């Protein structure tokens, strides 16, 4: 165990309460500053020219006319980004995605950029850039891309994970296999075997705030970047590597972030903005349009998955296999690998094998999207689990409970589980009033489970106590959904002071040591852990100051309820010293009082959820209405229950959109046809009911308070839960997400035929 933990029967007075968030007033008054809300004196407007073709050689770019346009201060193409990657292929992929290098790889790929005195001039300049393309054959479908006849996206790609190593190029960038036991022997023991293929379409994280930054970079290589990001330290490191800067000379400040969900873990235009600024020697503000966000940033994979599961008549699964094909866009990814790892993670299986294939296509580079890759695998597996339960005549929840993973189970992706929550979430589902509600005509109910790893990572936190006893906590993880409130609660809990006494600041890259990107549900887990240790370090200083004031050994001082108390009969005459009293005297007892902590927050507990969903399908139109939706998830320990519920509800809503409406639609020409919120329809308020939640707390033994990450898992079950509900409502198995009205009507028709 990384840390001594005594989470059981811990009495909390602050943690677990529903306090108002400290940044609430800023955010309801319009004062909070997001990516596009910062300005600098003399700033220019940056704009990016993008390829209209899915795949094309760029034979010539003539920027001379644009450069001559009055008001244009800098024009860039791929040539303006020398290769400083030192042979690091991953970095080169990032660079090439930021700006094409001789070849456009997808509709929307950046090919040139300008900085001009205003938006109008910048837009005119883009039109004056003449790009000569030679179109190449393209492929956008994951199954088409692995056919031998498919155009090869990168001639240098050899399929990794295959022995012996292949010698010819392929669109399959990587094969990853996980599992244990003997699946053939397992299927031989099965009484019933179900095998089915599934498809899911590509979706976007759909954060409401487009990517935006304000970049300043001088000829001396010193610069600043104000940017909406989930990881300003990572952005700093990546931008510095790509542009040949010293890390310490680039100060990156994360603005308030208007949603990320994984899409703001990667750089897109930030290196371009910095390079424009360097060339023009003026600040450059670069804000993406919504069209650019859809065409050129962060979607998740579209997938094609085959699942086969066998079980005994008594309901015990004997073997399970999955083959998962995930497209990663125009650059290699490891998204199918995560799909393969998560696919059977909910179950205790003797014989299991999952194989993932990461596939290149002419689409934008895939980015993480909330529990990346898990929802698609869960859709396929949880659908077959339902079919199998039905086939052997067992209740679908009982079937899951019988096969659920538990403490000591060897996970399908390798390690052995500690205490986990899949069983308890299923028990909660079984006993939930939702399951007893009567269903009417054309209505159906679905249940599904989901898993996500969670992780911690590098974290660095400062806690400073002011002379008036107020506390400034500086963290390096970004507040994506209320974590300031949770971290202030934790600091207040440790110090024994009022929540309102703590102010949490997100530190820029020059005020703290490195912090990993706020991803993997790590914000409250890891910064919470670092806050606890920073506060405990501060308490040690507080005790020393009290001991010095009393002139007694520090061993005789304890910290209780926000004050130093002198222990032992000989000290009975010493009244306690509060944090405020010690802080007030600090200038004369040794100076400022602070606690610091840097930690690799390992030991993030895995997370499980089970969802219930009731739908009504209109057999005339194929439209689906969500009648009821309930999320049950293990949070380890809910620091701020409101924001834990919020994560459950938000993930469920994104999953509902994915299940029913959202998809990237590509034409035969390889162009994205619905790059806007009108045609890429995310759920609106009138699409949804209230989303009920139940928080379970199965403590994570590796966190002092038992915290597990909660942000991501909630998006994993919805595709399958709704798939099962719709299938039950229409009497036909749904195998293609999104289950849009035309697809449902077609499934009904095909089912009747």
């Amino acid at each position, binding site marked *: 165990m990384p840390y001594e933990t005594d989470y059981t029967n811990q009495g909390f007075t602050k943690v677990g309460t529903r306090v108002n968030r400290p940044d609430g007033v800023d*955010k*309801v008054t319009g004062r909070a500053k997001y990516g596009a809300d910062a300005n600098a004196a003399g700033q220019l407007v940056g704009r990016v020219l993008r390829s209209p073709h899915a795949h094309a050689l760029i034979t010539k770019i003539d920027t001379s006319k644009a450069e001559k346009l009055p008001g244009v201060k800098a024009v860039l193409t791929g040539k303006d980004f020398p290769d400083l990657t030192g042979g690091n292929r991953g970095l080169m992929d990032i660079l090439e995605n930021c700006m094409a290098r001789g070849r456009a790889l997808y509709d929307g790929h950046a090919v040139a950029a300008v900085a001009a005195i205003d938006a109008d001039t910048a837009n005119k300049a883009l039109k004056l850039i003449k790009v000569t393309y030679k179109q190449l054959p393209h492929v956008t479908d994951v199954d088409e891309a692995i056919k031998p006849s498919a155009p090869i996206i990168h001639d240098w790609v050899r399929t990794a994970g295959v022995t012996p190593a292949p010698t010819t190029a392929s669109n399959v960038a990587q094969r990853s296999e996980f599992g244990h036991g003997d699946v053939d022997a397992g299927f031989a023991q099965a009484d019933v075997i179900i095998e089915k293929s599934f498809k899911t379409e590509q979706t976007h994280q759909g954060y*409401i*705030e487009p990517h935006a930054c304000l970049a300043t970079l001088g000829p001396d290589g010193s610069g600043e970047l104000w940017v909406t990001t989930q990881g300003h330290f990572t952005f700093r490191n990546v931008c510095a590597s790509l542009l040949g800067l010293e890390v310490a000379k680039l100060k990156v400040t994360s603005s308030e972030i208007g949603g990320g969900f994984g899409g703001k873990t990667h750089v897109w235009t930030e290196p371009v903005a910095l390079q424009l600024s360097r060339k023009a020697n003026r600040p450059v503000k670069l804000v993406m349009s919504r069209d650019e966000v859809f065409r050129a940033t962060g979607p998740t994979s579209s997938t094609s998955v085959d699942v086969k599961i066998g079980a005994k008549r008594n309901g015990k699964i004997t073997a399970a296999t999955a083959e998962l094909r995930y497209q990663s866009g125009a650059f290699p990814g490891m998204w199918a690998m995560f799909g393969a790892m998560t696919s059977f993670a909910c179950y205790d299986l003797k014989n299991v094998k999952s194989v993932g294939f990461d596939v290149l296509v002419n689409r934008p580079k895939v980015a993480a999207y909330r529990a990346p890759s898990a929802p698609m695998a869960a859709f396929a597996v949880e659908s077959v689990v339902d079919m199998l339960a039905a086939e052997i005549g067992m209740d679908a929840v009982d079937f899951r409970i019988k096969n659920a993973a538990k403490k000591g189970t060897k996970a399908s992706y390798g390690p052995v589980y500690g205490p986990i929550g899949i069983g308890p979430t299923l028990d909660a589902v079984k006993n939930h009033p939702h399951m007893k509600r009567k269903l009417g005509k054309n209505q159906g109910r679905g249940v599904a489970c989901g898993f996500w790893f969670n992780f911690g990572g590098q974290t660095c936190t400062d806690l400073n106590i002011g002379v008036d006893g107020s506390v400034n906590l500086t963290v390096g993880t970004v507040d994506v959904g209320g974590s300031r409130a949770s971290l202030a609660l934790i600091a207040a809990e440790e110090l024994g002071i009022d929540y309102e006494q703590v102010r949490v600041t997100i530190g820029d890259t020059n005020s703290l040591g490195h912090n990993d990107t706020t991803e993997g549900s790590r914000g409250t887990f890891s910064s919470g852990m670092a806050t606890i240790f920073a506060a405990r370090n501060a308490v040690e200083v507080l005790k020393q100051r009290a001991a010095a004031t009393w002139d007694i050994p520090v061993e005789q001082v304890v910290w209780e309820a926000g004050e130093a108390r002198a222990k032992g009969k000989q000290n009975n005459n010493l009244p306690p010293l509060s944090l405020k009293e010690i802080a007030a005297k600090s200038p004369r007892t040794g100076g400022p009082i602070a606690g610091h902590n840097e930690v690799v927050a390992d030991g993030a507990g895995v997370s499980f959820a089970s969802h219930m969903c009731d739908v009504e399908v209109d057999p005339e139109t194929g439209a689906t209405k969500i009648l009821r939706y309930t999320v049950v998830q293990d949070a380890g320990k809910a620091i701020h229950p409101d924001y834990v519920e919020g994560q459950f509800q938000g993930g469920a809503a994104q999953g509902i959109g994915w299940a029913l409406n959202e998809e990237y639609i590509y034409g035969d020409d390889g162009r994205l046809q619905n790059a806007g919120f009108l045609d890429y329809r995310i759920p609106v308020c009138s699409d949804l009911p209230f989303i009920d939640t139940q928080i379970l707390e199965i403590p994570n033994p590796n966190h002092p308070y038992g915290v597990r990450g909660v942000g991501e898992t909630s998006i994993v079950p919805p595709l399958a839960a709704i798939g099962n509900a719709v299938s039950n409502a229409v009497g036909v198995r749904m195998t293609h997400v999104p289950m849009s009205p035309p697809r449902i009507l077609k499934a009904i028709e095909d089912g009747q035929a």
Partner: protein
Amino acid sequence: MNGVTVSAKVNGDAVQYVCPADESLLDVLRNRLNLTGVKEGCGTGDCGACSITLDGRLVCACLVLGAEAEGREIGTVEGLSEGGKLHPLQEEFIEKAALQCGICTPGFLVAAKSLLERNPNPTEEEIRYALAGNLCRCTGYDKIVRAVQSAAKIMRRGKKAAR
């Protein structure tokens, strides 16, 4: 620049600005009047992040030209609180944890205020349809609807007390 000179009222204050004839009111508010509480999520009237009122009517600022505001009254999120006191909707959005990232919040507040002015006692369904033009990607709308319900109740009570 072929500018148009415009005189209008924003949150009760008289303003004057010069903007190109084709510049959106959203860009005017954000870039010329520094009212960055008005957010841009799409620029095509699909997300509602730039919701404002124009002579009391709820509109997307990105779909209105700056030149069209001549002589009219504009209301933005910055005008919601009076003096040091937050509007009940603002209070309840904080109290009910109705925001996560907060980028859509200004638009929701303006749209909800407009709804409650027209209908002080809306049903859940009326709230959901009135706010269907405002996209939120974080919350699943659950706590937003509850915050509007709660603010409506408080405002009705306030009106009764005032009578």
